[in-house]
């Protein structure tokens, strides 16, 4: 896909119809802040048969670190490599310089993996705030405690019957729920309903890249 500042001839839909920016819930400081991550790069990387070791070596060589097998995040070369299955990762990239990173990833994985651009297949909601764990605990049937879900942890789980990739960013305070795009409206409502009683701020989509 293209960087946000070089849009081609069709406009990207960056403001989905379900998004309702603003403050809701009881008065006081918001316990949860929800942000739609618009226009990120997300690649599905899957090692070809018998090529996992070669892929990891190539990625390490290109980006300085290799992803690990398992539900963890490794930051390298401007990507967050998130383990989503055996020998399978999502490489997530945001901000400027994505075109170069994209090319580097394609080159590094050329011989040993299939790389699919799934940027438009997922919608990612970022959640933060003092009550974010309590709100997510209402939805996700996994242990979100410090030990069970340390910074960088990732889980392919379900929320309200939707397949959701839930991860905690390496910086610790931010959680992300990535859901197949067609479910985004339903997940948005599930997240906002769960967060409402803690005080919720939904940020305008324009505010983020």
């Amino acid at each position, binding site marked *: 896909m293209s960087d946000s500042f070089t849009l081609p001839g069709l406009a990207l*839909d960056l403001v989905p119809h379900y998004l309702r920016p603003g403050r809701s819930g009881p008065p006081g400081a918001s316990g949860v802040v929800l942000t739609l991550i618009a226009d990120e790069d997300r690649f599905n990387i899957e090692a070809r048969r018998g090529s996992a070791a070669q892929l990891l070596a190539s990625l390490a060589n290109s980006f300085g670190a290799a992803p690990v097998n398992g539900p963890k995040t490794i930051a390298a070369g401007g990507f967050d490599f998130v383990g989503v299955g055996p020998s399978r990762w999502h490489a997530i990239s945001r901000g400027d310089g994505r075109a170069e990173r994209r090319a580097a990833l394609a080159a590094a994985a050329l011989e040993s993996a299939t790389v699919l651009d799934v940027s438009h297949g997922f919608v990612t909601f970022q959640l933060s705030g003092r009550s974010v764990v309590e709100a997510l605990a209402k939805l996700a049937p996994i242990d979100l405690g410090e030990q069970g879900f340390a910074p960088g942890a990732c889980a392919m789980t379900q929320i*309200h019957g939707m397949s959701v990739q839930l991860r905690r960013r390496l910086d610790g305070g931010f959680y992300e729920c990535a859901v197949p795009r067609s479910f985004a409206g339903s997940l948005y409502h599930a997240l906002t309903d769960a967060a409402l009683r803690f005080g919720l701020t939904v940020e305008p989509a324009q505010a983020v890249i």
Partner: protein
Amino acid sequence: MSGFRLADGGLIDRSRPLKFTFDGKAYTGYAGDTLASALLANGVRLFGRSFKYHRPRGVLSAGHEEPNALVELREGARREPNVKATAVELYDGLVARSQNRWPSLAFDAMAVNGLLKPIFSAGFYYKTFMWPASFWEKLYEPVIRRAAGLGRASGVEDPDTYERSNAFCDVLVVGAGPAGLMAALTAARAGADVILCEDQPRVGGQLLSDREFIDGRPAPEWAVSAAAELAALPNVRIMLRTTVTAAFDGCFAALERVSDHYPEPSAFQPRQRFWRIVAKRTILAAGSTERPLAFPDNDRPGIMLSSAVRTYLNRFGVAAGRVAAIYTSTDDGWLTARDFLRAGLTPVVLVDTRASAPAAFADVAKAVPIMLEGAVLGTEGAKGLSAIIVAAGGAQKRFEVDALAVSGGFNPAIQLASHFGGKPSWSENISAFLAGGTAQGVEPAGAAAGVFGLAEIFAEAAAAGAACAAAQGFAAPAPKLPTVAQTSTAGSLAAWRPNPAKDGKIFVDFQHDVTASDVVLAHREGYRSVEHLKRYTTLGMATEQGRTANISALAMMAQLTGRTIPETGVTLARPPVVPLALGAVAGDHRRGAFRPVRETAIHALSSEAGAPFVDVGQWKRPQYFPIPEDADLAATAAREVETVRTRVGVTDVSTLGKIEVLGADAGVFLDRVCATRASAIRPGRCGYFVMLREDGFMMDDGMIARFAPDHFLVYASTAHAASVYRHMLFCRQALWPELDVNLAAVTDGWAQFAIAGPRSPAVVQALVDAPRAITRTVFPPMSAAELTICDGVPARLCALSFSGERAFEVAVPAGYGAALFRRILDVGAAYGIAPYGSEAMGVMRIEKGHPAGSEINGQTTAYDLGLARALSKDKDHIGRVLSARPALNDRKRARLVGLTPLDPNDRLRAGAHVVETGVAPSAASDLGWLSSAAWSPTLRSFIALGFVSGGPDRLGDEVRIFDPVRGGDCAARIVAPCFYDPNGERPRV
């Protein structure tokens, strides 16, 4: 004493009076009361009427085991029936009403049922009201249901919200009585993550009810300090007003009553929260339930469990009555007598079924008249107890009392352990069932483990807490155990002997009005298994699940059959432990959030255009795009079809499943998965595929585009996309892991539109970037390409036709979907383009005879659908062998055909039967059914696809379309399934 409230004492807050009403009458209680304690304090003894016989009933217990004091709580939409007054925390403004009585609680005309007891005995509905048979549904059942029952539901939607949540811990402690507190302290001090769930609004359990002293101070104070220590630990979560209600594999369910102690929830707060708790180890410290004793008229208001009497006395400062007696087979009755004495209320008599007085209660024996080896022979009273008749030593005596405390032993609360299926084991020592071994890391402790002495409870609970912590790698130092006075509640089952004259009034299951005579009847009629006994008599099937009833009934059946109680057996408790509101189980899954929905990229645009949506699985698909000139939606569909047939239309096909198949072995893989030869599809082309299940039946059909030698894209049908992908993953991972092929479902990543109609090439030409030409020769039907459109937007273009016209499917990354849809409409305006919905698409596919979800329904084969010729004969593939079974290739099978009514205006509907003409419709004359039907604006006739026995061999035959459910009956002709352009010439123009 005002009412039955003592002048002082109790754990209530007398500085906080609370006003409430019961049956419209105003009362006052105190913070810390339950509804039951507050009503008792006000001298109310009559709480309700029994289920069948409408006998007056009071309070038996002080907890969830209450079978009698059921009320309707709150009003209007929040009215909740069958609430146990003993479990309702009193709040200011509480409104409660009695239930199951008419016209009033004091005078209940339905009490006449008691006179009809011989008719309403166990299993009466199997024997009576049998004639005339038609009266049962119309008269007998409605009258009986009205006469017997519980409270009234509000009948309107629950206005409150409910939440669900998840919690995780090393050690879950169920119950914060002495055992739970001690176990939690031990495990938490060792460092384990502990969740302590307590049903009550405060910790302490039985310590709140007894006058125990721990470490030299009142037991409730010790409980408070223990809770304070726990609350200060970062690894402990104390959950009050939370009942662990069920145990499942890997987790427990708990109900937190967040707002039940308020008139209504405060803003943004749920009424209840339903927890899923995952614990590595669990300590079951839920206490025990006291059993009543079996004696005639043992259900009068004023007769109460001994431990409940103490709870009201010590925790709530309420006396069960002004003049009390005690009837016991355990030491618990003696404890109650002692506490009565301390409160200045001397019982008039203590009747013990045992031969000797317990030595530890010499003080009681000195102060209270004692009758050993005694029995209560009967009771007196109209709407409450007024006297008891007692026999002992061959003599009978009558005592005028208004309260009788009874104790028949204790049942450890092992329900949660039983949920795992562990069979309870009988303990002769305590005459009760214990949890049968440790199940799934559940460790009973305290009274739940059959340990009743406080010192033993502390010691064993501490050991259990340490063991659970150690199992998680937390070493627990030996705790300093609190110093307590040793108490005992030893006891035995009270003997019961059949007595036909009295058994009809000995109530075993109070809530369902099951008496000893019902148990005798069940035995006489052969229902001697505990499972039969339960179902025949309804024993233990009420909301308190037989907590106070089961052992008494088992003891009776054991005596009747000459067996022991363990030989007689026991039924297992099933979830939930306490009644649950379904709203709590549903949580947020209500209204629009009942289930997730899937939206395409043009959902908002379609909605703005006024399109109604149809559910296709989880997808919301626009069904029509109506314009003001359309007379109705049928006209809309007809207009949309005509637009495609004559000009050009655009529709959203994003819901089609899209599965990327990549790798050197992609072609080999698809050849094995598909019954068609996918590897024969050249790069840059599309091909039709058929996929069979292992059993030879159709799984799906669709199209495959090949963009490169090692890159295929499978377009599966919307209905089968998930199952097809799952199947392909299974094949790849389990059947042929050696193949170099990767799969990825990318349905959500692409917005895809079909542009169909004779003018579609011009519209597509206006979209694609130069120098791509969209002509019949350069981009003929079945072409496929990855290209750019609209000045650089990456896209995929396939020349595919579902409508039967020249058509294209263009896909772009989903974020561009809405913009592309608008662009297509813009550039197509010059060619008369119009959007069309799933209805018009469905009409056109029926006109073309394409099978879809109604035809590929899991019961049909490629042969049935006329697709057998498409199957590859020279390679192996899934379903090949079993699809060749003779039965699946019988010409008489119901096979796909088209049907047209002889009168074009005769409406055909899917689901109608196809029968022979001139023969009465019957199963024998049934030839098949219509699977899809529509009005064809192209043919000006109703048309249908259907399955007819031997159908393709009967083209031209006349049949009858019989639709008795919807009143359809017409003549039709069997034709080939393709009604429109059978030679397929139009897509090639």
